[in-house]
């Protein structure tokens, strides 16, 4: 019975704050006196701030859900409601399972105590029992990679060490539901990889993860579902790639309209971003051309694994259109983790040709050339009267210690300038980074 239930069910949840608590003014004798002298013109209701205006959200068991939205749109308030730190002003909230919240790393750390002592207290604060912490102590210490520093007072730690220790404890609590607020990027490259692996493990164990982040590519890559909170409401819930695309469009639209980016909770109507219906084709509207499938494939199959810069990749786009489609244009955009366009091209620009009314377009990248990182490939089919967009995320892993974004086809040649050396032949020393790219 328990298994089939959703992990978190929110029904029409509203959360208001008294304004004084937001402005950080406390009731003191002086402020009360001043208010009384002024004849208490402020009524209690007028100073209410509504952060969440009515949230309906269901988070299924075992899914990873990303929550996105502007700063101040109510994401963190929502997490605090789910964790039970705040109680909703109205509405109901149902939680099924043990929750562990990583809202802040190192809650309750005491600077004068050693790492080991802090693990104990922090673990207990996060909801473990003494015995559980003791049992996992070695595992946590190993994960934190602090070595012999573990018995030094925490105040002597560097901020990176502090975060690593805190993260190690937080991820060793064994919850059913894990709530994460923007903390995956902890420590150096190596450690953040390790943290990601830990998260993957959580996912594989079928735990429910709720993640608040501004890193949209994380949402695209990681989450099964995305929820967009805007102006105190759930604006959209759905496939991560769709939600993030619309979110990005709404942001750029708002910037284009030079909408004031004021704190949403303080704005009339919740300060929602502009609607982007004009930019996003509705499914019912039946655009003249539709993308029925978008696949990325490599010589070794799909793109679930980490790709190598030398991999050959094919972009397969299935489309159907109504009637002839002389004016259909396929635009491919390759974007980095931050949404920056790395490469963009179009079929019509490069090879103008007559297209069938339905079929498949293949874009063959003989060599991926990209260095380690997260990327998104976006395909847009544009015709007069509408367009359709699909995107896929993929990841490239590091194989060589290189820097930058891409690896041009190259090879190294060393030539000696001294004629006395017997062999004055140029020496080719680089079979390693195979030029030409066909490996």
């Amino acid at each position: 019975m328990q298994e089939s239930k959703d992990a978190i069910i929110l029904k029409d949840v509203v959360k208001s704050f008294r304004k004084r608590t937001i402005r950080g003014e406390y009731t003191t004798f002086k402020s009360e006196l001043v208010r009384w002298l002024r004849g208490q013109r402020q009524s209690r209701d007028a100073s209410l701030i509504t952060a969440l205006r009515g949230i309906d959200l269901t988070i299924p068991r075992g899914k990873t859900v990303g929550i996105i939205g502007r700063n101040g749109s109510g994401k963190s308030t929502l997490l605090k409601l789910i964790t039970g730190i705040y109680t909703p002003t109205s509405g109901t909230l149902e939680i099924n399972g043990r929750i562990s919240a990583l809202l802040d790393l190192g809650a309750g750390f005491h600077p004068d105590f050693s790492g080991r002592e802090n693990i104990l207290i922090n673990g207990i604060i996060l909801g473990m029992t003494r015995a559980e912490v003791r049992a996992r102590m070695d595992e946590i210490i190993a994960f934190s990679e602090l070595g012999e520093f573990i018995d030094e007072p925490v105040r002597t730690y560097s901020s990176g060490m502090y975060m690593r220790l805190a993260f190690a404890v937080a991820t060793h609590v064994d919850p059913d539901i894990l709530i994460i607020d923007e903390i995956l990027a902890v420590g150096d490259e190596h450690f953040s990889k390790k943290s990601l692996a830990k998260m993957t493990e959580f996912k594989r164990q079928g735990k429910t993860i709720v993640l608040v982040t501004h890193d949209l590519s994380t949402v695209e890559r990681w989450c099964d579902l995305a929820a967009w909170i805007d102006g105190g409401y759930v604006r959209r819930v759905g496939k991560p790639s769709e939600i993030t695309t619309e979110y990005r469009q709404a942001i750029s639209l708002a910037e284009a309209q030079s909408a004031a980016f004021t704190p949403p909770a303080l704005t009339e109507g919740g300060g929602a971003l502009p609607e982007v219906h004009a930019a996003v084709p509705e499914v019912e509207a039946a655009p003249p051309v539709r993308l029925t499938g978008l696949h990325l494939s490599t010589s070794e199959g799909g793109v679930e694994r980490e790709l190598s810069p030398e991999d050959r990749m094919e972009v397969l786009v299935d489309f159907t259109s109504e009637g002839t489609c002389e004016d259909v244009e396929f635009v491919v955009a390759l974007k980095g983790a931050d949404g920056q366009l790395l490469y963009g091209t179009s079929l019509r620009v490069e090879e103008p040709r007559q297209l069938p009314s339905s079929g498949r377009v293949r874009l063959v990248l003989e060599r991926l050339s990209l260095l380690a990182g997260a990327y998104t490939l976006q395909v847009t089919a544009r015709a007069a009267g509408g367009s359709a967009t699909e995107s896929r995320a993929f990841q490239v892993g590091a194989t060589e210690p290189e820097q930058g974004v891409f690896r041009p086809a190259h090879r190294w040649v060393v030539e000696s300038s001294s004629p006395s050396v017997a062999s004055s032949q140029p020496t080719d020393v680089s079979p390693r980074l195979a030029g030409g790219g066909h490996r």
Partner: protein
Amino acid sequence: MIRLVRELYQYRGLLLSLVQRELKARYRGSFLGFLWTFLNPTLHMLVYVLLFTVVMRQNIPNYPFFMFVGLLPWIWFSTSIGGGASAISDRRDLLTKVRFPAQVLPTTVVVTNLCNFVFSLPLMLGLGIAYGQWPTWHVVLFPAVLLVQLIFTLALTYILAAINVTFRDLQHIVGNLITLWFFASPVLYPFSTIQDENIRTLMTALNPMVTLMTSYQAMFYEHRLPEAGPLLVLAAVSVALLYGASSIFESRREEFAESI
């Protein structure tokens, strides 16, 4: 009240760890370390001894011992409500980040100071023995008196901690009132030095610490059983106060995370 106590029991692991940490943290980094648990009240006592045996002469036999008997539980009480008042408002880092019952925090303060009190008991007994006052069988009631004081202190601390979240002046008001309260309680002087019977009755009725202090002094210094009547009344009042304190606490706890 039952919910409050039940949650405390559920989170006893957390409470225990926090108390342990407070005890360790208090003197961490200091050269004499744990010895300060004994040194602090001793030095405190010596100041008053100097005042009352040299400057203002009092004719009380074994005066340092007499004063110590009252001073130790008083220190427990005053540090508890002094620290307990800001127990919740000072722990913003915990309350806004992790979910746990807020009453753990003021309870930690009271229990930590209770531990300090218990640890310094051997010092008090030792001082008594030095003056030739061996403890008698009357001390069997000590745990009962201790329990009454614990309930009373907890109740008061909960109320102060809950109100101080929104009304921060309270912690300063408490700090000053404690001094007044100290002199209104028979710690430095025997209660019997107040001649007027009516004033004595009034003080006992208004100040629960009178009953507690005289009870400790009866058991350890005068070697007799404390008066049962006032103690039983105080026990009942303390439980009632704790009941009231928990309802105040319960009604305000939702605000804690938002207001601090």
